[in-house]
């Protein structure tokens, strides 16, 4: 790859134009830096970027848990669709394979929930007087709420149909 202008490869769209959708006082973009464009080597991100740091790998694992959850929900929707044919048409999935898939999907869902709720205290900023509620307290409250909802749904499923 030969060297090329940095403006061609990586310069963001900073053209001095104010954005129509945002207030002018803050959002008007400043003119791009003056001077001749530097001749620079545009570095590309390799496909294996997510193997370079532990944090990247954990991020990819976190994101991929959504695939397992979506797959299980798809199976669940298939079962619901069968119910349209009445009790006779309802054939719940079962067997060792489905149980194994369900256990894997449950593990993925739990990991997804853990990573999300652990970060709740980070992204939720709740004012309390002139301070804010501590992040750790918010995360614990979230886990507590998850436990209560889980027990309530489990109780409904186990004893509600009896």
């Amino acid at each position: 790859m030969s060297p090329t202008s940095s403006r061609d490869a990586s310069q963001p769209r900073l053209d001095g134009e104010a954005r129509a959708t945002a207030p002018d006082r803050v959002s008007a973009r400043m003119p791009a830096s003056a001077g001749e464009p530097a001749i620079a080597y545009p570095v590309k991100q390799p496909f294996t970027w997510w193997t370079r740091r532990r944090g990247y790998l954990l991020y990819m694992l976190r994101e991929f848990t959504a695939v397992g959850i979506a797959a299980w929900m798809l199976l669940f929707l298939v079962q619901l669709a069968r119910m349209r044919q009445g009790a006779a048409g309802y054939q719940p999935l079962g067997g060792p394979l489905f149980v194994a898939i369900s256990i894997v999907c449950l593990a993925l869902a739990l990991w997804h929930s853990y990573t999300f709720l652990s970060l709740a205290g980070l992204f939720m900023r709740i004012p309390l007087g002139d301070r804010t509620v501590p992040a750790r307290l918010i995360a614990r409250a979230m886990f507590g709420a998850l436990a209560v909802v889980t027990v309530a749904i489990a109780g409904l499923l186990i004893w509600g149909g009896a």
Partner: protein
Amino acid sequence: MTHETITLSVTRFDPGQDSRPRLQGYEVPYRDDWVVLDALNWIKSHLDGSVNYRWSCRMGICGSCGMNVNGQPKLGCSAFLRDYLPGPVVVEPMANFPIVRDLVVDISSFLDKLRWVKPWIIRDETAVGPGEHRQTPAQIDHYRQFSMCINCMLCYSACPVIPIEPEFVGPAAIALARRYQLDSRDHAGQERLGTLTGSDAIWDCSFVGECSAVCPKGVDPAKAIQQTKFESTLGMLMPWGGR
């Protein structure tokens, strides 16, 4: 075990001669209290005066000497050689920026992004009135950590979104916007929120979180971005959600 020398593999790139960057090895004296920047200065003084890199304060304040050391975004003045024994230490330019020469990258895109978020106090009055604009310690605590940013750009080097979305305003600029949004003296909170929720800003972030992990000053740009996302969503859903 004592070490007499340690090898640095330094990226070399001359746009007038090289078609792509290459690594060049230098053997430098090992000192227990030396950082990578000391080793680079020794190379420039004793071995090869043509090596190019940025540096200034040598004490983690100016943010000039950002580079990738063994693949990790670091300040050259804070990366001790003793942590990389027995070597070699691979010293490369910061990732996600075009390389101008050797370890020097083109930071003009960052400077433009920084200007765009207007990292200064905006007030309603056209002229600053007499007297002080005092704040309580609690008011300062709201934004203090975001004000510690030294614009070293290591967070941009660690952010995997930047190479995919080069127009993404990025972690440091958003953290600084958040810093002024949380400042009780600033009157442009809603406007800043409008800017940050527009294109190329907070919603480009997929929350990898490594921007915060690599920050040498303990700033948490990921927190700034996620908090802004949450406030923006709350503002849409709840009538009282806006600031």
